Structure formats: C-alpha cells, structure tokens
C-alpha cells in the first residue's frame, strides 16, 4: 500500500502511464489471487475469451454457483428490507470466506426463511378470515335485526360465505349451493352475506341483479379499514441514466488543460457586458459559498449541472466583466470609466454631430471602445468590422494551437512521419492563407489603411499577378501573395501522397523475410511499436490507408475555410446580445421612465428586470455557452483530438456497492 502513496501526482496534460501485464496463475490459487487483487483495486481485467460462449469458459460451474448464492443474498436483502430492518454493513472484508460453507449455510437459511414465510402467511390468512367472519356477523346481523319484524315466522337460512379478496371475486361457491326451504311452504327469503372489496361492490351488485333477474335487495355497509393486504406490489422504478462522455485516447494530449481558460474567454467574447457579468459573478459566488451545503443535498438535474460547473461559471463571469469593459457595455450603457471620450463635436452646438460627425481631439480612449460610439450612425459598421476581425484573429490563433498540440502528440508518440507529412503541411496551408489574413488585419489596424481585405483575399486566388493598386498594404505584397499561394498549393499533395507510400514501405521492411504470417494467438502482440497508424494487423491494406489519408487531407483543406468562417459566430452572438440589451434598455426602461406615473415606471422596471434575467442572463448564457463549447469540440479539437479511449475500471471490491447503485 505504501507503493501507491509514493507515486508521483498525475500530470494533467496526458493520462497516466499504464502497463499491460499478463498473469499466469495456477488454477487452485486463482480465486485467492483474484480476490486479493480485487481488494487492492488497481487492476483492470480484459476478457481474453470474449468470443467464447458462456459454456466454453473454464469456470462456468463456479459462476453458476455464485449466481445462485447471489440470488439467495438478494432474496435475503429483499426480505430484510420488507421487514423494515437495516442490514449492518461490515467495513472490513472478511479474511478468507469459504464459499462452499457459505453456500451450504445460505441454502439452509433460505429454506428456513421460506418455511417461516409460508407459515406466517397461513397464519395471517386464517386471522384475516376470522376477522372477516366477525365483521360479517356484526354488520349483517344489523341488517337482519332491522328486517326481523317483517319476517318473524320464517326460518331463515343464513348462508355465510366468505369472499376472498383476490382480484377476481369467487362467485361460484354461493350460486351452486342449495338453500333449504323452511317448513312453511312459502318460498323463504334467502340471505347471502359476505364481505367484498369496496371497489368490486358495484360489479358484484350488477352481477347478482342479473343472476336473480332483478329480484334482490342489496344492502351494504362499509367496514373500517383492517387487515392489510398481504400482496402489496412494490414497483421500484430504476431510472437509468445514460451518461454520454468522451474519454481521451491513451496518453494523448488532454484539451481540457487549455479549454479551462479558452472556453470562458470565448464565452465572454459572445456575452460581453460587464453588468450582466456582475450578475453572473454573484450567482457563481453564491454557488461556491454554499458548496458545502448544496453538495450534500440532492438537486434537480438542471441545478446539479449548474452546481457542478460553479467554478467554470466563476471564470465565465470574470471574463465577461473583462470583455464587457472592452466593449464598454453596462446593460448596454457605455460609461466613461477610463477617462473622457476622445471625440468631441465640431462646434459648441453639436449641430453636425449626425451629419459630418465628431472630430478626434485627444489620444484614443485608453481601454476599450470609446463611449462616443454608442448611438452614433456609424456605430454598427464600426463595431461589426471590429468584432469580425477580432473573431478571425481568435479563430486562427485557436486553430494554430490545435495543430501545435497535434505536433506535441506526434512527438510524444515518436512518430516523425506524422510531424513531417501532416503537421508541417497543415501549418503551412493554414498559415499561408488564414495566418496571412490575420497579418493583413493587424497591419490594417496599425496603419489605418482603407484597403478592402475581402478584395485582397479573393483576388489573391483569382488573379494573383494583377496589380493591387489602392489595396496595397505594404511593400512587396504581390510577390508575397504569390509565394504564399504557391506554398498552399504545394502543401496539399504534401499532406496527401507521401504518408501512405512511406507506411507501406515501412510495413514491407518490418515483415520482410517472414514467409509465414504471424499466427493469431490470443496473447497480445508483445513487440508493439508506437506506430503512427497504430495497427497491429499483419495485412496492410494500401487502398484503405490511401483513401483514409485522402479523406483526412481533403477534410482539412475544406475545413480550413469553413472553420475560420465558423468563428464569426463570436461576432454574431455578441452583436445579438448587445442589440437585445439595447432594445430592452431603450424601448422598455427609458420609455417607461419617460412617463410621470410611478406605476408605469415600476411596471417598466419590472419588465426590464424580467427580460434581463430570463432572456439575457439565462437564454443568452446558455446560447453563448453552447456555441463556445461547439467551437472547442469541432474547430479546436478536430485538429488533434481522437478521444477513442476508455475509462479505467479496476476490479475493486471497495467500489462495487457504488457500481450497483
């Protein structure tokens, strides 16, 4: 056990290193060895006999006997819980439980228990019957007493019959019985009394009506609630949750390390309003402050998710405040926090403010968007241009990070093939096109040029040799564009062709000289090389590998364009958010405030509060959350993440009770 404590802490970027071991255990000590390993709880067993039917496995009889034993234990557990007792839990495992003895003991106990159950059942039934007889005597006696003075002279036959309380009333016994007539020749009134379930009373009445063709009088009296129905059916609903999650492949880079920061940041880019950010921050702080109290309680599924993500929500809130300060929106109202605006009117009357515009007279506003932009006529074109360019920059940066992570993976697994024929051409292709676009964006911002970047990019492809004219941003742009185009064109066959051919050459070299194929034994192939294609199969299907590579490279090329454009959702959602909050502010709050009546103001305030809380805080949060998550899972992780691993589930007796729940 000390060994386990001395292990170094887990590195978050890659999963723990695992070892595959093969245990050869003599049959007699198999049980003890496995139970010792189970108590240790550190080994996951793989099924080497997966293709065999249950009959052909070695220990099939023992498994059957264990199944029997576990059935008996389940039976006991049921009975114990029905009796209302709680079975004590032994915390320390018993040292060598002899299964043979246990089996015999358990079957004896089960036998006894079944007998006792049967006896107690019989007793209870007899008791119920007697109780019912008593009830019938009491109640029916009451009826007959009241009718006694009508039929004094007759001898009455009292047929007492007991109706069982099964689901289906047992009628035959009474209809078949003969009833004796009294000595007087009048046809005596026949009495039938008994007890029946209240719910069946109506049906019973109807049936007697039909059987006697209507010549009957039916009197009923309710009894007090008495003996319990021994057959109470308990329906235990087990709700099975299918939890869908993705597990990283063995030792590949874990994107969560980076996602922890980039995800809240991209969320904030779409959410950017520091007023809303403060509300989100308050929510997150409440969740964190009450975490000890809320953690032990059972929350609804929605609250549970929110509670589980309370730290992520905290980060999201902090980043939203940051972005909100940059966009300069506090519930869509700009503030002059960092000093005065850099723009002023041309003259004191501000007549030309909406026609010729303001002039810049100071250094630019130190942090964020200048508050003068809000409400101006060119607010949207300016902000749109800003946010779109920013989205492209963020997108290209994140995609580059993804490709670099794939480089780290390739280096870790020692696959130089992947580095030279996948990573390098991918970097070249992406950066010569979209990295260049990012460069143009930065240069345009820095120099304030009026060049049309759409035009530049499109004509870079359509007519690269044409003169750029007024779209020229820097000296030597045309030859640079032609060079980048050439590099991109070269990168495509570079990522498509060489890898399959080299893989085939490697495969032939590896298995050269072996005239017979390796026999497929059930043991694992022990000399495994971390090959980039990661297959242990002897056949190398060239066409399959080639098609796979072709699909992969075409996918990359096409996705380069579509993923970059996909990042524009950062712009789209932040525009939607700011427009929504502007509308609520101007058209609800300000409108209501314009009236003098306090009632209208209060109503306006209430509507504003509800709209902000439900639409902006809840719906927009969910929406930005979803889109930021999608950007990570598709655009970012497509570049490097395989996610084809499975979770480590060791055989551990300590965790079995949790498994059963």
């Amino acid at each position, binding site marked *: 056990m000390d060994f386990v404590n001395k292990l170094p802490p887990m590195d978050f970027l890659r999963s723990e290193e695992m070892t595959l071991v093969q245990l050869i255990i003599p049959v007699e000590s198999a049980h003890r060895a496995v139970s010792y390993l189970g108590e240790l709880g550190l080994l996951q067993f793989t099924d080497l006999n997966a293709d065999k*039917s249950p009959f052909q496995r070695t220990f099939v009889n023992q498994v059957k006997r264990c199944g029997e034993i576990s059935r008996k234990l389940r039976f006991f557990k049921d009975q114990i819980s029905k009796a209302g007792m709680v079975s004590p839990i032994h915390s320390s495992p018993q040292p060598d439980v002899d299964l043979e003895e246990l089996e015999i003991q358990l079957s004896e106990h089960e036998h006894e228990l079944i007998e006792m159950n049967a006896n107690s059942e019989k007793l209870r039934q007899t008791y119920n019957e007697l109780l019912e007889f008593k009830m019938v005597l009491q109640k029916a006696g009451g009826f007959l007493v009241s009718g006694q003075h009508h039929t004094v002279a007759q001898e009455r036959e009292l047929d007492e019959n007991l109706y069982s309380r099964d689901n*289906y009333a047992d009628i035959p016994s009474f209809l078949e019985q003969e009833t004796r007539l009294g000595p007087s020749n009048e046809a005596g009134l026949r009495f039938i009394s008994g007890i029946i379930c209240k719910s069946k009373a109506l049906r019973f009445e109807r049936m007697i009506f039909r059987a006697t063709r209507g010549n009957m009088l039916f009197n009923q009296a309710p009894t007090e609630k008495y003996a319990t129905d021994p057959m109470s059916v308990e329906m235990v609903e087990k709700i099975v949750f299918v939890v869908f999650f993705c597990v990283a492949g063995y030792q590949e880079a874990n994107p969560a390390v980076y996602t922890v920061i980039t995800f809240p940041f991209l969320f904030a880019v779409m959410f950017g309003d520091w007023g809303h950010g403060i509300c989100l921050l308050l929510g997150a702080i409440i969740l964190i402050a009450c975490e000890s109290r809320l953690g032990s309680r059972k929350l609804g599924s929605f609250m549970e998710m929110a509670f589980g993500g309370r730290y992520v929500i905290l980060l999201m809130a902090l980043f939203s405040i940051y972005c909100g300060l940059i966009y300069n929106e506090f519930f869509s109202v700009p503030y002059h926090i960092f000093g005065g605006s850099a723009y002023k009117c041309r003259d004191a009357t501000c007549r030309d403010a909406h026609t010729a515009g303001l002039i810049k007279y100071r250094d630019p506003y130190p942090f964020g968007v200048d508050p003068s932009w809000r409400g101006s006529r060119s607010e949207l074109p300016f902000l749109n241009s800003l946010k779109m360019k920013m989205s492209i920059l963020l997108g290209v940066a994140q995609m580059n990070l993804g490709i670099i992570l794939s480089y780290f993976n390739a280096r870790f697994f020692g696959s130089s093939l992947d580095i030279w024929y996948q990573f390098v051409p991918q970097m070249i292709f992406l950066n010569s096109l979209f990295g260049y676009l990012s460069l143009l964006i930065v240069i345009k911002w820095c120099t304030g040029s009026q060049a049309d970047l759409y035009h530049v990019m499109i004509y870079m492809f359509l007519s690269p040799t044409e003169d750029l004219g007024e779209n020229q941003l820097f000296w030597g742009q045309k030859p640079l564009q032609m060079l980048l185009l050439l590099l991109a064109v070269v990168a495509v066959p570079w990522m498509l062709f060489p890898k399959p051919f080299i893989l085939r050459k490697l495969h032939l070299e590896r298995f050269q000289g072996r005239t017979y194929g390796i026999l497929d034994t059930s043991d694992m192939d022990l000399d495994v090389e971390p090959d980039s294609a990661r297959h242990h199969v002897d056949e190398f299907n060239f066409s399959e590998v080639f098609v796979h590579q072709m699909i992969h490279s075409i996918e990359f090329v096409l996705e380069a364009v579509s993923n970059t454009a996909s990042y524009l959702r950062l712009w789209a959602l932040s525009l939607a958010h700011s427009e929504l909050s502007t509308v609520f502010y101007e058209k609800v709050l300000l409108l209501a405030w314009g009236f003098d009546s306090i009632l209208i103001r209060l109503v306006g305030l209430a509507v504003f509060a509800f709209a902000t809380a439900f639409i902006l805080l809840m719906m927009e949060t969910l929406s930005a959350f979803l889109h930021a998550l999608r950007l990570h899972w598709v655009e970012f992780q497509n570049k490097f993440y395989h996610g084809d691993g499975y979770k480590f589930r060791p055989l551990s007796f300590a965790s079995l009770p949790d498994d059963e729940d």
Partner: protein
Amino acid sequence: MYGFEALTFNIHGGYLEAVVRGHRSSLLTASDYNNLCQCETLDDIKMHLSATEYGPYLQNEPSPLHTTTIVEKCTLKLVDEYKHMLCQATEPLSTFLEYITYGHMIDNVVLIVTGTLHERDVQELLEKCHPLGMFDSIASLAVAQNMRELYRLVLVDTPLAPYFSECITSEDLDDMNIEIMRNTLYKAYLEDFYKFCKKLGGATAEIMTDLLAFEADKRAVNITINSIGTELTRDDRKKLYSNFGLLYPYGHEELAVCEDVDQVRGALEKYPAYQSIFAKLSYGESQMLDKAFYEEEVKRLCLAFEQQFHYGVFFAYMRLREQEIRNLMWISECVAQNQKSRVHDSVVFIF
C-alpha cells in the same frame, strides 16, 4: 391522406414507435437460439437468458426451475412492456393496442369454460390464463351453464360483448359447442379488427389488413383441417370462415368441401402466396403445417417493420414476442424431457 403520415404521426405516436422498435431489437437472434438449443439443463437456459433482456425477470428464480416458470416470466416481460405502452398511448392507438389482446381474452374465456366443464378448480384455471387477456369478473365464467348465461352474467360488460350476437344459443356447453363458440367469436373479432384498421386508413390500414387477412386465411385452413372427420357440417364450417382475406370467397367454397389434407393443399395451391407454404410439406404430411404457417407469418411480421409511421409495428411486435415465447417453451420442454433432437422441429427463427 395516405403518404403524409410523416408529418403528424410523431406527435402522438412517435415515442411509442421508438419504444416498440427498441423492444424489437431485443428479440432473440438465431445465434441465441443456437446457444439455447445446446443447453443441457434448464439452469443453462436460465444462464443464457440472463445475458439477454430476460435477465432481470429470471434472475431471482430459485434453482430447480420448471418450464412453466420460464414461460411465465417471459410472458410477464411481454405484459410489462404492453402495459407500459398502453398507458402511454392516446386514441386511436390505445384502442388498437386493446384490440390486440381480445384474441387472448377469447382464449381465456374458452379455457375457463372448458376447464369448468371438466370439473377443474377455478383458481388453477385462472393461473393458466394468459395475463394479457385478463379482465375483471373472469372467474365468474365458471358459473355459466350455457352460452346465454355466459353472455348475460359476465361477458356483456367486456369488450367481447358485440361478438356474441351470432353465437348465443340456449344449448348447454359441451366440447363441440365451445370450439364453435371460440371460432365464431374469433371470426367476429377479426372482422371487427379489420374494419377498425380500415377505418384508421393510411399505412396502418394497408399493413394491418394484409396481416389480418393472412391470419384469417390461416385460421380457415386450420378449422378445415381440424374439422375433417368430425360432425361439423359443411355449412357450419363455412360459417366459421371470416369474410375477408385472400381466400374469400372462392377459396372458402373449396375449403368447405374438403375432406382430407390433400384436397386442402389442392385448394390452396391456386393462390401463389400460399403455395410456398405447402411446397415445404410432402404429400400427406400435416404435422409441419403449423411450423410452415408460423414461418410465413414471422416473415410477414418482420416486413411490417420496414415501414414507419403506422401502428402495424405494435401488432407485429406482440406477435413476434409471442412466437419467441413459444420457441422458448418448446426448447425448454425439449431440454427438460431430454429430447434435444426434436428441438428444431418447432423453433421458428425470427432473425
């Protein structure tokens, strides 16, 4: 309008159709049956079944198993699934689902009446009844002496009431009459079901009318073969045939006059759809006829799943599950009686 069910079916029926398709994918496959056929004892069967969907139903049964226990638990699973679907269904699907069980109700009624005639205990008979065909006051069937009483006392409240109009007589019940009563009721039930499906229209009507027509024809052939050599007159026999189906009306004319199996074969070979059934049997053989019919039925039922947005999948699933339970019963009986060579005589593979 036929063809546009895709627009509206899922509003009310989408969840249940998904549920029933999920259940269908848990039907036992040929490899399961192969494994089961290799079992030596009933415990082995239980072990195999515990790896399938029947596991939770069988796992708590104590070790000396009986075949009746296995069949009972498997039927219980079917009943649970049916009840779940029924309580989630809206009209007209709920009526459709109830129609499926009327056949079992008729069988239960006949079982109790026959049993009472032979002086058996009512409780014992109740346990033998199929759980899907139970209704309240079924036990009071044991009282009735003739059909009129049967109807008046008990059946007038059940969904079987409208089927009685043709067969109420005042004769006492005996074996022959009971069989005739069963077949008359079943004929009325099939015709009612047929009309109901036709009224539903669309893909349901098309598929269900096909399946019900096959059912009606199958029953016609069975009635014919079973009544060869009995006192049943030709007219009586003809009255028991349903008034729809591929064999109506000309096939029925021919079947009514048949006196042995080969004549029946001759009558049916004129219909290409049924030719294949008789092709599997050699002349004079009639034991395998049941299995041949079941195979054909299973084929048609599986085809019902190929189309979406209709109620036929529910009917098909119930029938396929019943066939599977029949298979399991046959296999268990063969294993219990040590006659494993005869296992394949009656097992119809579904997939």
